[in-house]
């Protein structure tokens, strides 16, 4: 089924991955023997009161981490897997599943260090935390003062996992598996980690006279952009990469003539429901603490925006097409979850209703318009995550209120138009950087191993062609 050339290329891939995987563990196991791990390096200077782990906060963040893992597999895996044709069901599910595996390893080795490690000029983290060197059981107060540093690290891992998994919807039903692996390694390292650094990183570099830490921040964060749980880093970035992917890989065979109807919408609704469930970890977990009311507030607005967006999409489609669809309601829910993400720690429940309505309307029309533009973003990553994430980031600039989170800022509707401008800047930066970088990476991967399966394989389906399996027998 696969030509010799393909086999050879697969072997190159295999070897490459193996090296990536094996090169490093030799390194770094040493530290696991040291009785006092060098965590101090990362800890805030001694003058500050040593941060203490809180059991409730840790319980909540670990629970949240597990919930966000669930979002990728089985959540997203089934949400996407149900929407493709039967012959591509397993291959599509595999995308999410294997990305979970690949990024889990990358993140422990170098991804976390690049993203959150000691800041280098606001652009990138250093490799000081390679292999979790110095990332241990004590809190890192720069990020979360009441949970183990490793808890923060693994919570963030799940965000790094789901972002490339979201992109896979754009090139569903035609991506070569080896190309996917290579793409993920590169994209995670060269796009996700830097972007996360810009938006979220903080490194204490000294102490001012009052004894408060002086922090160096990622440059977008330093601008004052608000992104509570990843509207730019996760959603706009997956949407922008998806646009690049849809353009570079091209349309599916039979686009415009064949029926691409979803093969199993019960799986899709199951996936969407698990996404909703897991998203409580995503958003309310981003408070990084259970107490203080912020996690609860984020939980409430997440649920409210999601429900509103699902209803909105449904009603708009009902008016537009004459029937309310189940996939529409599920898609609307996901759109609402996306849109509330950056705002979830900054807005109140009534604002979240508005954000949900906006998400439902905008993402619905984005999916309709796609049909007219002619690119084949198979599962609407651009329409849902790109557009929804952009709306959410902007809406944060509209609806944010210090009454909800005093560490945040007020938005336009609460008297501070400047915040909206900052949000617009952050949105533009993300779209441009991610689109360009993803485009280049995809072209490189295409040149190295070929992005796309052959015509014959596409007819056969990913499952048989790429995996020698079929989903149903």
């Amino acid at each position, binding site marked *: 089924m696969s030509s010799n050339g393909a086999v050879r290329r697969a072997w190159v891939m295999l070897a490459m991955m193996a090296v990536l995987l094996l090169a490093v563990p030799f390194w770094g196991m040493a530290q696991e023997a040291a009785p006092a791990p060098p965590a101090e390096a990362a800890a805030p200077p001694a003058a500050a009161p040593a941060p203490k782990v809180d059991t409730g906060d840790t319980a909540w963040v670990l629970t949240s981490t597990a919930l966000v893992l669930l979002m990728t597999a089985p959540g997203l895996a089934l949400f996407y897997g149900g929407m493709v044709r039967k012959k591509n069901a397993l291959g599509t599910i595999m995308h999410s599943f294997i990305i979970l595996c690949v990024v889990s390893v990358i993140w422990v080795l170098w991804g976390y260090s690049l993203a959150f490690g000691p800041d280098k000029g606001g652009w990138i983290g250093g490799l000081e935390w390679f292999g979790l060197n110095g990332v241990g059981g004590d809190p890192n107060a720069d990020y979360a003062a009441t949970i183990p540093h490793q808890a923060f690290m693994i919570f963030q891992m799940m965000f790094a996992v789901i972002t490339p998994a979201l992109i896979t919807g754009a090139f569903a039903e035609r991506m070569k598996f080896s190309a996917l692996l290579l793409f993920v390694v590169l994209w995670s390292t060269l796009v996700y980690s830097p972007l996360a650094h810009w938006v979220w990183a903080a490194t204490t570099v000294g102490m001012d006279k009052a004894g408060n830490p002086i922090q160096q921040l990622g440059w977008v964060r330093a601008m004052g952009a608000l992104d509570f749980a990843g509207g730019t880093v996760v959603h706009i970035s997956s949407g922008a990469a998806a646009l690049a992917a849809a353009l570079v890989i091209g349309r599916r065979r039979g686009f415009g003539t064949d*029926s*691409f*109807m*979803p093969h199993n919408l019960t799986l899709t609704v199951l996936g969407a429901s698990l996404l909703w469930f897991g998203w409580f970890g995503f958003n309310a977990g981003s408070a990084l603490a259970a107490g203080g009311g912020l996690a609860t507030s984020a939980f409430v607005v997440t649920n409210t925006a999601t429900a509103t967006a699902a209803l909105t999409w449904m009603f708009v*489609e009902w008016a*537009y*097409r004459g*029937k309310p*669809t189940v*996939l*529409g309601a599920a*898609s609307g829910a996901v759109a609402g979850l996306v849109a509330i993400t950056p705002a979830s720690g900054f807005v109140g429940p009534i604002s979240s209703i508005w954000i949900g309505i906006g998400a439902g309307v905008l993402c*619905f029309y984005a*999916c*309709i318009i796609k*049909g007219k533009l002619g690119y084949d973003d198979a599962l*609407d990553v651009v329409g849902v995550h790109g557009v929804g994430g952009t709306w959410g980031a902007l809406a944060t600039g509209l609806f944010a209120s210090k009454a909800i989170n005093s560490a945040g800022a007020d938005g336009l509707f609460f008297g501070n138009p400047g915040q909206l401008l900052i949000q617009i800047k952050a949105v533009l930066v993300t779209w441009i950087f991610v689109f360009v970088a993803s485009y280049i990476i995809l072209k490189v991967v295409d040149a190295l191993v070929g992005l796309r399966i052959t015509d014959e394989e596409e007819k056969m389906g990913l499952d048989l062609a790429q995996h020698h399996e079929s989903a149903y027998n």
Partner: protein
Amino acid sequence: MKKIEAIIKPFKLDEVKEALTELGVQGMTVTEVKGFGRQKGHKEVYRGAEYVVEFVPKVKVEVVVADGLAQRAVDTIMRMAKTGTIGDGKIFVTPVSEVVRIRTGETGDGAL
């Protein structure tokens, strides 16, 4: 012997089966098929895009009967499967040159 092939609406299957049994038909074979004809299919919507699915689910009933029974079997099927609306389906009759019962090796009418 004759093979009677009837393409009918799925929810009519039970009635057809019962009526044929009463007529003395001892066996039949049923296949799920998709039909295309005057009856227009249905619309499906996928993320706001509309598709027309032209194929309608039907059931094919195949029953082989002795020549003498054929006409009555056709009439029976026609009576039971009829709703009077478009899409009720068709009956095709074809000649069968031989029938064998696998279990016993009987052939001809006795094998039915």
